[in-house]
């Protein structure tokens, strides 16, 4: 497992470096007042989604899984390694995003209160976790190339749905009101759904890999 994590980090070093340049550039834009600091939160999702996808794509290209399955790591190890790597990417990018946003806020460069920025980071990390939970089984079953279509559809449904919903509310369309207790518990419910979804996704991927022939 340790070897698989190290492999993912080493083979993606170049891509991770490029993404870090994005953070610096967007951070600069935020300091210059072009973007709101919350955009750093969106980068958490970008990291959390593109890095695991690239990792699977690179494994596909070299047919690494055929070799890894022949090692003591086996099929379970490959799946566990990929899920653990995804979790690590979300965790590290979430932490880094939070530190950057809160740091800049405390330095007086943002009007958004630090607590709100932490909330943005947590929300982005939770959404990313849920999206990865949906995408990873497709990635592991069909490979990165074929799963790209699924990821596009997922993005369109989730982000398109959110924009549509926001637009409807802004235009005064009457939406059904959630009970106040449910509205208050919504962040916790969403976090639980994401974590539970990720665990369920792991079990599904284990099943997919158990049947896979190399």
């Amino acid at each position: 497992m340790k070897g698989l994590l190290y492999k993912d980090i080493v083979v993606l070093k170049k891509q991770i470096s490029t993404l870090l340049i994005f953070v610096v550039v967007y951070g600069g834009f935020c300091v210059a007042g072009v973007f709101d600091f919350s955009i750093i939160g969106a980068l958490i999702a970008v990291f959390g989604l593109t890095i695991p996808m690239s990792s699977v794509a690179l494994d596909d290209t070299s047919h690494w899984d055929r070799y890894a399955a022949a090692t003591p790591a086996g099929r379970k190890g490959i799946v566990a390694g990929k899920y653990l790597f995804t979790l690590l990417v979300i965790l590290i990018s979430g932490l880094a995003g939070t530190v950057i946003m809160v740091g800049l806020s405390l330095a007086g460069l943002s009007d958004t209160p630090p607590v709100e920025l932490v909330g943005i980071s947590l929300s982005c990390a939770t959404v990313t976790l849920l999206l990865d939970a949906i995408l990873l089984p497709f990635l592991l079953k069909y490979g990165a190339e074929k799963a790209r279509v699924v990821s596009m559809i997922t993005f369109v449904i989730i982000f398109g749905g959110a924009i549509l919903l926001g637009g409807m509310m802004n235009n005064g369309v009457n939406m059904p009101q959630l009970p106040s207790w449910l509205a208050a518990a919504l962040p916790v419910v969403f976090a639980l759904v994401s974590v539970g979804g990720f665990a369920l996704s792991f079990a599904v991927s284990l099943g997919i890999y158990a049947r896979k022939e190399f």
Partner: protein
Amino acid sequence: MNNALEVSHLSKDYGAFKLDDVSFTVPGGTIMGLIGENGAGKSTTIKCILNLIRRDGGEITVFGRDNRKEERAVKGDIGVVLDEVLFHDVLRPRQVGKILAGLYPNWDMALFDRYLEKFDLTGKKTVKEFSRGMKMKLAIGAAFAAKPRLLILDEATSGLDPVVRDEILDEFLEFIQDEDHAILISSHITSDLEKAADYITYLHNGRVAVSGAKDELLDTYGKLVCGRSELEQVDRALLAGSRVGQFGCEALVKDRRAFARRYPALTVDPATLEDIMVFTGKGDAQ
């Protein structure tokens, strides 16, 4: 002597191709050569041993342990070199070592470094910049550094020049000096196996066509070169296959001593593994 690998009644049905009732044993301290034409089932057999594909029937044990029930422990005892090198292009040899150190319980980094030095792979080059020979050497060094008891190689020497192949065969011979070690190697290059293997299993159309001790096979089989009229007088039951050409005939004799007693006037030369493979595979050809 304990058996390192036992494959019994292995079957795998792909529809268009079937691996059918394959059985063989690799005793400790020996090299088993798995030969056969393309698509004969060599890689399928190796994939079943490594549990990379699901078998439809049969049993496989490695040092007495079931390869599926005790998969992790079994794979910890196996060093693998597949038909192509599957390390990522961007990796340097030392990084490959660090990755595999996290996967194999008995990984020996000092031994891996020694092989990198021996195979001249210590530079800053990445896998992408390696020739096929260098990639294979890297994979073989990695397989040895996993400190396996059983080495499984699928066409590992194909595409390598004779000097490198010879160098690697010497490594294999050194490896099996330990009675607790064994090698299963599939190859098209029968001359390599003639040099290194103790046992041979020849797969043809998914079935074991010939299996046994190499020296015994080479001692028993013979190659008959004669005219068409002479061949017509020979009892076909004594032949494993024949080839009739414009200027003469060749045939594989199953037991050259018995044949010589019955047909003392005909000359039977010793057969090579390639002869055994070609004649058995083709049967009678015009």
